[in-house]
């Protein structure tokens, strides 16, 4: 056991896989000697050298095109898109090419690649560097999408993503980079498509993800003090989606709340709510309620950003109100 930051876990997760498999390469902007703009990949260049850890120009389409071409010819690249907002400049390669080519070729090709990216708000970077784009990726058939919330999960889900034969969008919550957590020694390998129940309660179920996980847990503690006992699910993997866990835990409590960092409209919780509203309809004791960032571009100022993202207080208050109405 060691205590690691979420940031350190990234390099450890990638290194674990690069040591194991020579076909794993890593490319992106400033990822080499510089160790990444978020210092998430420090040490990789030193250990694996400039052939396997490669700096690129500011050419996101080329970065992901390179990853795609390498994957279809037998390698397992990990590409970094520095900020998840930049998916917008290479969305064609992600959504039209990588996601669809296996299906279009009737299975002739596979794309075992990972695209990792710093996602979400909390750092006062403004609307073009703070978006939570998990819903952008979730919506595209052919992409898998994971969002780890702890250092341990960073490593385990990275291993699962690298070993998976399908393209995985790996979204790191930027605001979690400095957070710490216990990580077991040795190899860690998770399974995609498995949610984690982090807290068991009897009154309501909260499904959440990434940066919102610690907030939901803190809100659950507050609520428990006020007599509302919540189950908290860390969804972890949006595609594949562990609906069984969500449906089971929702049916057990009769209520579901989603806590989403993405802006409201078509946030990932909308899909979860629509599944639950159909499949657990008769087990629900009250409406499914979504707690999200409002449907606005994210403002830069600290005061405004703090109002926009779901806070512990807003989560607790919303759930409290809904449970008492």
């Amino acid at each position: 056991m060691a205590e690691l930051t979420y940031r350190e876990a990234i390099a450890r997760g990638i290194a674990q896989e690069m040591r194991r498999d020579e076909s794993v390469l890593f490319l992106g902007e400033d990822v080499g000697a510089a160790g990444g703009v978020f210092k998430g990949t420090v040490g990789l260049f030193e250990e694996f050298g400039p052939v396997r850890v490669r700096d690129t120009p500011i050419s996101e389409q080329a970065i992901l095109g390179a990853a795609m071409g390498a994957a279809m010819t037998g390698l397992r690249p990990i590409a970094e898109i520095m900020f998840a907002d930049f998916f917008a400049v290479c969305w064609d390669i992600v959504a039209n090419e990588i996601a669809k080519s296996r299906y279009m070729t009737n299975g002739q090709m596979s794309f075992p690649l990972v695209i990792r990216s710093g996602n979400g708000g909390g750092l006062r970077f403004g609307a073009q560097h703070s978006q939570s784009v998990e819903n952008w990726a979730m919506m595209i058939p052919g992409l898998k999408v994971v969002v780890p919330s702890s250092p341990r999960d960073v490593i385990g889900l990275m291993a699962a993503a690298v070993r998976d034969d399908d393209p995985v969008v790996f979204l790191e919550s930027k605001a979690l980079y400095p957070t710490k957590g216990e990580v077991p020694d040795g190899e860690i390998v998770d399974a995609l498509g498995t949610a984690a129940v982090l807290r068991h309660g009897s009154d309501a179920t909260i499904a959440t993800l990434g940066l919102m996980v610690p907030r939901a847990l803190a809100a659950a503690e507050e609520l428990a003090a006020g007599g509302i006992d919540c189950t908290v699910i860390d969804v972890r993997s949006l595609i594949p989606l562990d609906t069984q866990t969500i449906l089971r835990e929702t049916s057990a409590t009769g209520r579901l709340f989603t806590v989403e960092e993405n802006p409201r409209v078509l946030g990932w919780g909308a899909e979860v709510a629509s599944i639950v509203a159909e499949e657990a309809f008769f087990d629900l004791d009250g409406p499914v309620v979504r707690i999200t960032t409002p449907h606005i571009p994210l403002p830069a100022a600290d005061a405004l950003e703090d109002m926009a993202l779901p806070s512990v207080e807003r989560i607790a208050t919303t759930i409290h109100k809904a449970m008492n109405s």
Partner: protein
Amino acid sequence: MTTTEASPVHDVDFKLELYRSQVALRRFESRAYDLFLENYVKGTSHLSIGQEAIAAGVAAAMRPDDWTFATYRGHAHTLARGVAMTPVFAELMGRANGLMAGKGGSMHLTSVEHGVMGSYAIIGAHLPIACGAAWSAQYRGTDQVAVAFFGDGTVNIGAFHEALNFAAIWKLPVVFICENNLYMEYTRTSEVTAVAHPAADRAVAYGLEPILVDGNDADAVYEIARTAIERARAGGGPSLIEAETYRHGGHSRADPGKYRPDEEVALWKSAERDPVSRYRTRLLELGVEEATLVRIEADVDAEVDAATEAAKAGAAPGEDLLMKDVWANGGAEWRN
């Protein structure tokens, strides 16, 4: 073009093969057009009639394990690598015996087995992807080369620019071949392009040599491609080739191509410009008997006929295919 003494292009048998290849591409496309008129071809299709010398000439310069990256106008590039006609016809018709069982359609022809690493229908997207394959060959030391075909209109999209710079700085074994047929869909490319030679005039921006070739001369194309491919294979990095050509017909199935001056079309269709007629004349001038050529043409016709029938005999793809192969596990499940 500088033809080296040692080039196989001087060999008559080689030339006959190149002729056969061009005739096959021509007659395949003509039949595809007929099939469209007869409503066998669903969706769209983009023919290469008039541009055969490029697909044929380049393919002749490739090693079987080299990779082709084509566009929606990719029937010719796919067939030239040795893919059989039947599955390609069948794919155009949306049949289960299609190259991708009907799932891709005419714009996405792919045969990994033949090194045809996909046809891409979003302008320019395949250029960075070809870089990726070339990077993979470089990393694994396999000496393979990636060849990407694209049109003159494609040079104005961002992905072109990113791919060219990327290939140049990493010295990737990739050859970019611009088929300059003068038009985008219905607009003359020169009207919207800042330079006269869309690809050649931009080579310097990537530290590359400008290369222009008569794209209607299969021998010239072969020689240029051979040089570029061998340079790439030897670690000399990428090349950007502009091959000047013309499509005889419209952009896609529904387009009569009326935006083009009649004289221009007539000129390019003339026996002096048309790549197939020109090559035929060249062979006759080299002393090949006309009967040899007629036999090749008849063989091809028979192949086209047989493939047409075999393709038509294919069944419609069944429901089992619909939810197949989204994922590497063969399925389409996104939840449990």
